[in-house]
């Protein structure tokens, strides 16, 4: 038995020797990687891929109050680096970045993918393959955006709350339920929608706008307010993989209503009787699409039920009265309906079925769908869309029932 044990040990040592000899395989130290936090893709006029990746600089983080001889503590360094590289494909560009980056770029922590408007208008298909194929890219965690304006500017706005702008985008997305006025579509959703015949993808829109609170620049100081600020706004509509148009903020919410993606938001409607205004806090909605086929005409009925609260009531009304409550419900329902119809109108205008009406139709009428499948983009603009909204906005009305306007005589 001992001699068998020794043989087994020899075997293990041989294996270990082989392992050491062959190198470290997949071992890579955490600090040797450059964690890409945001990836932006553009196309040069020559048709090459221009890639911009954002990598945080941990050395800037390490310069905390640790004392001692922490290397790098004395050098004040920028919290992130942006690398811009050009290549024939995305992968080519990433590897081209190796000429500049001291760390191997690592994409598993990436959460933001931004395409330039130009590229999106030319079509995403070619570049999306990398994002779908790569093991490092997390389809579900990445949010896809189209940039209005220069991507470089957007990704260079300092983030006073965190390490880099990418994390700021991530956090804005996290609180999207505050307005539901912009889309934040996961990469997985885009890819899945692209694989469907009766639905077109849409993505969020990102933009750098002037910061009204920017401090006049005196000297280079980290604590100053930057001149630009990042904002997410609206949605970009695609036909197949090509950008064809944008939705503004209320229209975006109109789209999100149909897709059951509204997590919350504000709804401002004129008060009952046309006096004052009511601001409601949406809690969520539930929508169903019912396709109908009568005499060769396709009609979609979208039924939405909305639940929410009154957050503000500026005007002389008494919310404790049931009829006032009913009126508010009706007004809110109308507002939601307007949003949805505006979105439908815009989508039909650019022939982009982002709502998945085609899919809904296919599920209900599979045989008929086969005949119209190829003509769907032409048929879609002519589809009649009915929107029925049932709003129930008075769950809570806050701490007071009557507005101050009438409580003071």
């Amino acid at each position, binding site marked *: 038995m001992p001699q068998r044990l020794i043989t087994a040990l020899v075997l293990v040592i041989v294996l270990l020797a082989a392992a050491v000899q062959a190198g470290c395989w997949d071992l890579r130290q*955490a*600090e040797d990687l450059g964690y890409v936090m945001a990836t932006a893709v553009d196309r040069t006029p020559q048709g090459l891929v221009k890639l911009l990746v954002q990598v945080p600089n941990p050395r800037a983080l*390490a310069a905390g109050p640790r004392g001692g001889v922490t290397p*790098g503590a004395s050098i004040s360094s920028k919290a992130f680096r942006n690398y811009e590289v050009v290549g024939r494909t995305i992968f080519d560009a990433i590897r081209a970045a190796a000429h500049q980056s001291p760390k191997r770029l690592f994409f598993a922590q990436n959460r933001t993918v931004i395409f330039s408007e130009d590229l999106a208008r030319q079509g995403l298909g070619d570049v999306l393959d990398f994002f779908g194929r790569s093991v490092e890219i997390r389809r579900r965690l990445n949010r896809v955006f189209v940039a209005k304006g220069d991507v470089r500017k957007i990704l260079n706005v300092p983030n006073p709350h965190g390490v880099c702008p990418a994390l700021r985008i991530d956090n804005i997305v996290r609180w999207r339920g505050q307005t539901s006025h912009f889309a934040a579509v996961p990469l997985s959703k885009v890819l899945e929608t692209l694989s469907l015949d009766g639905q077109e993808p849409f993505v969020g829109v990102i933009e750098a706008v002037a910061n009204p609170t920017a401090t006049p620049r005196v000297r280079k100081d980290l604590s100053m307010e930057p001149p630009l600020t990042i904002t997410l706004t609206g949605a970009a509509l695609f036909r197949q993989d090509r950008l064809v148009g944008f939705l503004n903020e209320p229209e975006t919410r109109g789209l999100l209503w149909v897709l059951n993606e509204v997590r919350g938001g504000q709804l401002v409607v004129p008060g009952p009787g046309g006096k004052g205004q009511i601001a409601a806090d949406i809690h969520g909605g539930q929508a169903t699409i019912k396709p109908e086929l009568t005499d060769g005409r396709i009609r979609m009925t979208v039924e939405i039920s909305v639940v929410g609260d009154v957050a503000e009531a500026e005007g002389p009304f008494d919310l404790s009265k049931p009829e006032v409550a009913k009126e508010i419900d009706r007004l809110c329902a109308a507002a939601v309906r307007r949003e949805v119809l505006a979105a439908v109108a815009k989508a039909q205008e650019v022939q982009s079925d982002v709502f998945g009406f085609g899919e809904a139709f296919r599920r209900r009428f599979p045989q008929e769908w086969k005949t119209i499948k190829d003509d769907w983009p032409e048929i879609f603009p002519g589809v009649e869309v009915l929107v029925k909204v049932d709003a129930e906005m008075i769950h809570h009305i806050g701490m007071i029932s009557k507005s101050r306007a009438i409580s003071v005589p």
Partner: protein
Amino acid sequence: MRRRLTKKLMDLLARSKKSVVQPVDGKQDLGRTETRVWEPAELERIPLSPDLQVNITRLKEVFDTNPDFIVREFDIAGGRARAALVFIKDLVERSLVGHNVLKSLMLDYRPREPNGRPLWEDMKRVAVTAGTVKEITNLRQAVEGILEANAVLFLDGEATGLVMEAEGFEKRPVGQPETEAVVRGPREGFVECLAVNITMLRRWLKSPNLQFENMFFGRVTRTRVALAYIKGLVDPGLVDEVRRRLRRIDIDGVFESNYLETMLRDSPYSPFPQMIATERPDKVAANLLDGRVAILTEGTPFVLVLPAGLVALMQSPEDYYHFGHLGSFIRLLRWMAFGISLLLPSLYVAVTTFHQEMLPTRLLLNIVASREGVPLPAVLEALLMEVAFEVLREAGVRLPRAIGQAVSIVGVLVIGDAAVTAGLVSPQMVIVVAFTGITSFLAPAFDLAISIRLLRFPVMLMAGTLGLFGVISGVLAIFIHLAGLRSFGVPYLAGLVPFHSTDWKDILVRFPMWTMRRRPAELAKQNRYRMAPNLKPGPARDNHKKE
């Protein structure tokens, strides 16, 4: 029974070693003075002689020049007969020898004549006031009697001797168990003296069914070992198996129960303990009640309890002394600590060097930031830190308590902090290693903690070469090993696999006492129930009947 067993054992011992000396025939060897070695079997073949002088000379020859070997010759019954008392000076209680034997024989004893009784019989019945006496007939018994701290009495004209209990040497008093302290529960621990330990067990289990079997191990040390079990609860096959394995042992010395443990194990190369070593009598008593067998060894407070699987090793007597919920909580904590202390450094290494995607972004950046400037790869850092930790721990244990504390303070606070500040190690690694070290203290069986400490290193190496795949391979290898392991025929993972639903009441959590009616399924083949059914307490439910 006991004597037969001992004799058999000694025979075995003797046979195994080839006797080099010719058997000695009584008288012709009287004059020999050269040094020679006496084998037990040889001594056994020499009967006691009726001639007192022959016996004395032979014993003197056996004990040779030992200065503490005392032969006290005296006359009894007013000079009617010569007698001798033989003992080793410092092993016996002098007042006992003086009072029970010498005084009573020399001064008080007046043989009542003629009552038809030979002097020897009369003397034994009237004059010897020692409690335990035993008659012997050969030299070996005499020698062994003397060495076991007895006094041996010879009477001229009698071919028998009388071994009288006179033990009297210093023993450590019963104190708190050093390695297994409890908050609530009995505070006495075993000591080095076997007799005291047996007494303790007797006090815990006042049943005639509690059986002890005496054995002696060590050709030279002749260490007394007691096998303890409860008849009717224990599986007789198990006791036979233990006896059979014990009989095989032929060694020159046994100083600690581990000498026996290493020779009794089912799987000698396994790093896992296959018996419980404990110094708590309550734990031993409770395990005997579960149908286990205990081996008590003279000279060590650590008693072996067997068979023991992983489940039994994770149980601590305190689980049952506390309120059930707390007991369960501690038990759960312990299993968790078991996992953590085996895997935490490996998981940390695997995640930070292979699976960076698994960490939340902020945590990852945090780790990266603190690892900037650390010169070693994470695997080596972890290995080094673990080694350093083991060094500190060992130093702390060996040093006197006061210095030990100073060492741990210097080691942990000063060195650790300085290493982090100097950028040699990352603070996260210090946390990981320190926490791992602390969790390993939660194992109720020290042996188990040791095996985990040892296994941590190969798993860490695997993590460093193959990442989480390496970790899971290591864990699976350990699992396969444990699944194949047996302790005295009982599967090591009994309860978990092979699955016994009744045992689960006492594995991850401790169920209330009244639900644990059955003894462990693999142990108690007979007499399975511990208690009467329906013992669940509560307010009286049959009040209405009393009216």
